[in-house]
């Protein structure tokens, strides 16, 4: 596998795992992929672990070929963006049965406490 591809996949795992963990801590219930907290934490750990381990020993595994600094930043940004879009799309699907309150006035990420991202966007542009 080409190193930039491996980097992207691992960064995507780290990004998605971290995002799920952060949503869990912030209590953004409808941003979580799984309904069960313990299952969600297990899933986050499963996604985070390979990235943390491989990034820690990367230079030992691949001592000559490197992903350069600017390329690394661009790949991480792309992976992070994919993680956000993917997490919000999948959580909107897995929580599609959620019934949003009619009178919710909050804005920003707080909306994920009461409805899915898709429901919020649909309501906004209706």
């Amino acid at each position, binding site marked *: 596998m080409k190193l930039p591809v491996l980097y992207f996949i691992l960064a995507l795992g780290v990004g998605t795992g971290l995002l799920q963990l952060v949503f869990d801590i*912030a209590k953004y219930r409808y941003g979580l992929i799984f309904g069960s907290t313990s299952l969600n934490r297990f899933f986050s750990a499963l996604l985070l672990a390979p990235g943390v381990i491989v*990034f*820690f020993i990367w230079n030992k595994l691949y001592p000559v070929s490197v992903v350069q600094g600017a390329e690394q930043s661009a790949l991480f940004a792309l992976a992070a963006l994919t993680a956000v879009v993917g997490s919000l799309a999948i959580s909107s699907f897995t929580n599609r049965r959620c019934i949003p309150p009619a009178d919710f006035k909050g804005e920003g990420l707080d909306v994920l406490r009461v409805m899915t991202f898709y429901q919020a966007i649909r309501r906004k542009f209706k």
Partner: protein
Amino acid sequence: MDWLLDLDRQALQLINSLAGHFPPFDQLIMGLANDYFMPVAFCSALFALWFIGGQPPEREKRQESALRALLGLGLANGAVALATLDFFRSRPGTELPINVLLYTPTDSSLPSNSATVLFAIAMSIWLGNRRVGSFFLLAAALQAFSRVYAGMHYPLDVISGAALGIIIALLVRWLFILLQPQVKWLLSLARQLYLA
């Protein structure tokens, strides 16, 4: 100038002479010094800083810090690329009989790319939140030390990288003060799209 370079070499040899005596510590240093672990950890922390909850005013402050750090990261990469266009300093492993723990990169040793980027991020965070920023600065200093310990950089490389990163972070803060209405608009747009 020669005395400074001599001092730099002596400092490197002193720090690097610690390598190889305590293998578990060397393993830890190798993890911290490698090209990916700390940069990915810093970028992930920025990512978490953006999405972590809290009251809206506090959240907006954190998100502004994350934006500043992101711009700092981009500018730091650009600054190092510019600085090394016409300047090259060999890596210590090619000049001195030292203990190289990881590998000897082929690009210019000065300024240290990782130190520039990590200090630009850490200082940007510190300017917005002293407590969280201090932790980032400590981690950046640890990574800079580990690069010297592992024989990948001279001390002057990481010191100049850190100074460049700090200058970039201050420049970005000044830029954000100038562009405050646009920054507020960007954050408000992200909030309206439920992304901030």
